[in-house]
């Protein structure tokens, strides 16, 4: 360590930072610190001139570590990444957002805090290591599970982008639910024309291998090189080989398109499905319309009941997305075939977004009755007619309708295929049994790297959106189909000299990235890993460190922090802030000039779950007055269970403090959203006040 050469660069940010922080004093002090060989102050480090100056110093002094005290590390990342030195040897100190900007009126304290931050970063950078991206070879083959409209389109798109594609389907034929439909909406054209085109494209593409009557048995390996065993059961289908053949496919990425199943309305006994012949589902309607030439024209009085089973807490709690348009489409077809048909749609809310609104309007114009009100019960009279009695909420009175045919607009539920596959390849599903994804930002991802979803296995959606989702899944999958995959070296490394093989990391990893090596030590699959550090936070022996933030760095920073940097009577709060939410909120508090006590020293961590209880205990032992662990609100955690685990671990420390006759309030968890700087500032303020009441940590050395 003695021969390291650190260059310290202080940015005045066109004088702004220097207005509050005595940079010259800090520069003077820094130059005397071990390892520091150069100190430079600049008015704008991120400018071309500033970058040039850094590069110049690196050459001139032979610097192997660069410390930049300027704006938040979340800013100007591009400018400070390529300095002609490994980017993991560049450390940023947040002098602007979390120092000068948030304490503009207290130059003295801002400088004290800046000094503390600089000291910690100087310690941290001593342990930094140069890291290079790792390249992993990958095959250029993709697997698509499910031969419905989503799966077929994903296969075509993937093959179009140059990949070899295996498309497997558990039924003997392709086409999925779409092949059971009579007409598409909104154009009311027959699905057969689109399907035939897709089939012929599949046929003619030599890169696509279709396996029907086939199912996934299991999946192992990692993205780029999944090994999937596939069982093919019968021999009667096109292109399908021999009976009960099991084969292994190596694939770089998997697109899951296992589709949906119709909700069976039998449990809603009030509608008599199965008891009354003339009560059918919307999918029964499609079948009859397709198979019986006169079906549409024969109907005279038809009722549609919307939301059967959907938006129903007893059955499917969600809106099934398509049923409104399906009923409108079917009603229009009836009306076209027989304009005298008194078609009535009983609805709760009609949901026809975008272009579909025009179809809804067309339906209204065509004379289809829309009645707001859901029948509670259907009764069959002696002539076999179905009497529909409903309270019309708009008219404010009851209306009766004797229907020849009642169509129940039933929704979509997760398919059995999805459930089977989820077990075979360990995919997480949501409470409604659809494949779990970060619906907001990464809808096409599953919770396993390299496995993507298309179509209704993710959520109910119609044909056009299924096709669209197939394209999105393809675009995401292509990263794993380029022959090689570059992985950023942020992933955790297990020190097997310390590891006791307790398996906690294996259990707690939200992405199931850990497996065991041949000696039983945990090893991380860097392709599955998302570098959240939850394993680092959970390891009871502190044996796991991330590439960009190690346990020894954290411990070193605790050592050098002056626990009385604001004076003996001021409490010091150490904040571990998650980089996605809390740290950014803290930055915003600074940018917006929301005053925040200078008692908080913050350390950016990838996730609140990455902070080890040993680090927290150590901070308390070394005299820090309070620990603020700030992460995302539970359901918004970018790493699923990071916040939740962090809370549990913090509760353990809190219990321990109580046993030690220390105040359990010395550790605190706060949920801070990215967009809530006010809450951040208020939380810190309140906590500092509380700690003042508690008094000094008895373990702080005088």
């Amino acid at each position, binding site marked *: 360590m003695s021969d390291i050469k650190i260059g310290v660069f202080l940015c005045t940010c066109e004088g702004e930072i220097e207005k509050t922080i005595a940079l010259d004093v800090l520069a003077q002090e820094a130059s005397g610190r071990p390892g520091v060989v150069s100190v430079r102050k600049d008015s704008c480090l991120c400018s071309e001139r500033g970058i040039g100056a850094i590069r110049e110093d690196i050459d001139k002094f032979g610097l192997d570590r660069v410390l930049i005290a300027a704006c938040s590390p979340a800013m100007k990342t591009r400018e400070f990444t390529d300095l002609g030195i490994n980017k993991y040897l560049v450390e940023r100190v947040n002098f602007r957002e979390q120092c000068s900007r948030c304490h503009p009126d207290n130059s003295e304290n801002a400088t004290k805090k800046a000094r503390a931050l600089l000291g910690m970063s100087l310690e941290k950078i001593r342990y930094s290591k140069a890291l290079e991206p790792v390249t992993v070879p990958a095959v250029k083959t993709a697997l698509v599970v499910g031969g419905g409209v989503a799966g077929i389109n994903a296969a075509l798109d993937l093959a179009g982008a140059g990949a070899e594609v295996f498309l497997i389907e558990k039924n003997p034929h392709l086409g999925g639910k779409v092949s059971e439909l009579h007409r598409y909406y909104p154009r009311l054209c027959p699905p057969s024309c689109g399907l035939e085109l897709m089939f012929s494209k599949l046929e003619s593409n030599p890169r696509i291998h279709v396996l029907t009557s086939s199912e996934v048995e299991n999946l192992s390996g990692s993205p780029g090189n999944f090994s999937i065993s596939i069982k093919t059961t019968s021999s009667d289908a096109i292109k399908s080989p021999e009976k009960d053949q099991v084969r292994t496919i190596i694939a770089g990425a998997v697109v899951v398109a296992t589709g949906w199943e119709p909700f069976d309305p039998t449990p809603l006994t009030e509608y008599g499905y199965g008891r009354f012949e003339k009560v059918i589902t919307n999918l029964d309607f499609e079948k009859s319309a397709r198979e019986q030439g006169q079906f549409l024209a024969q109907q005279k009085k038809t009722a549609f009941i919307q939301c059967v089973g959907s938006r129903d807490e007893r059955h499917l709690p969600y809106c099934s997305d398509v049923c409104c348009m399906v009923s409108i489409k079917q009603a229009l077809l009836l009306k076209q075939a027989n304009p005298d048909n008194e078609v009535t749609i009983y609805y709760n809310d009609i949901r026809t977004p975008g272009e579909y609104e025009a179809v809804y309007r067309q339906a209204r114009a065509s004379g289809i009755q829309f009645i707001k009100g859901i029948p509670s019960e259907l009764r069959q009279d002696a002539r076999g007619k179905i009497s529909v009695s409903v309270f019309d909420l708009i008219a404010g009175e009851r209306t009766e309708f004797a229907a020849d045919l009642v169509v129940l607009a039933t929704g979509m539920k997760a398919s059995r295929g999805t459930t089977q596959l989820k077990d075979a390849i360990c995919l997480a599903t949501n409470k409604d049994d659809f494949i779990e994804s970060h619906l907001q930002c990464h809808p096409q991802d599953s919770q396993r790297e390299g496995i993507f979803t298309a179509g209704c296995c993710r959520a109910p959606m119609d044909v056009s959106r299924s096709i669209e989702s197939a394209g999105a899944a393809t675009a995401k999958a292509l990263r794993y189909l380029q022959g090689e995959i570059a992985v950023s070296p942020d992933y955790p490394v297990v020190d097997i000299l310390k590891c006791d093989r307790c398996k906690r990391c294996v259990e707690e990893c939200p992405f199931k990235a850990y497996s065991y090596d041949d000696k039983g030590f945990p090893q991380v699959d860097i392709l599955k890993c998302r570098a959240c550090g939850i394993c680092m936070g959970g390891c009871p022996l502190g044996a796991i460190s991330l590439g960009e933030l190690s346990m020894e760095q954290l411990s070193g920073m605790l050592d050098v922090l002056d626990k009385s940097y604001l004076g003996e009577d001021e409490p010091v709060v150490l904040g571990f802030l998650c980089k996605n939410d809390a740290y950014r909120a803290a930055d915003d508090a600074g940018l917006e000039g929301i005053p925040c006590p200078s008692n908080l020293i913050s350390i950016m961590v990838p996730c609140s779950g990455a902070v080890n209880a040993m680090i927290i*205990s*150590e901070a308390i*032992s070394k005299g820090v007055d309070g620990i603020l662990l700030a992460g995302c609100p539970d359901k918004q955690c970018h790493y699923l269970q990071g916040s939740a685990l962090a809370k549990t671990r913090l509760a*353990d420390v809190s219990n*321990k403090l109580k046993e*030690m006759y220390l105040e359990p309030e010395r550790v605190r968890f706060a949920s801070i959203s990215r967009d809530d700087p006010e809450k951040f500032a208020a939380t810190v303020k309140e906590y500092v006040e509380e700690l003042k009441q508690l008094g000094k940590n008895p*373990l702080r050395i005088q």
Partner: protein
Amino acid sequence: MPVYVVKDKCDGCKGKEEPLCEQICIGDLMTLNSDTGKAYCRSLRDCWDCMSCTKICPKGAIEQRIPYQLGYHGAKLIPMMGTDSITWTCVDIDGKVERFSFRTRNKH
């Protein structure tokens, strides 16, 4: 006077095979109850009160009952581990609290 496992806190080290207390116990006394998934000491009288298990337990679930030669009922000895330090809290039978921090050789 041996160790005492607080069952609510113990999580069996999640791996459900060999918990840390089992691995570290020099007398091979600690083990997992496969029914409850919680650790226990299978021979209390053989415990030497070395407190290795107390120190290593990540959940703080193992307490030490101080032998009467050293303390007596009511006295407590509680370790808290950092990465390179340990802090002991000693409570005597009169409730007097003293704390000691030491560097350990665990570091790096």
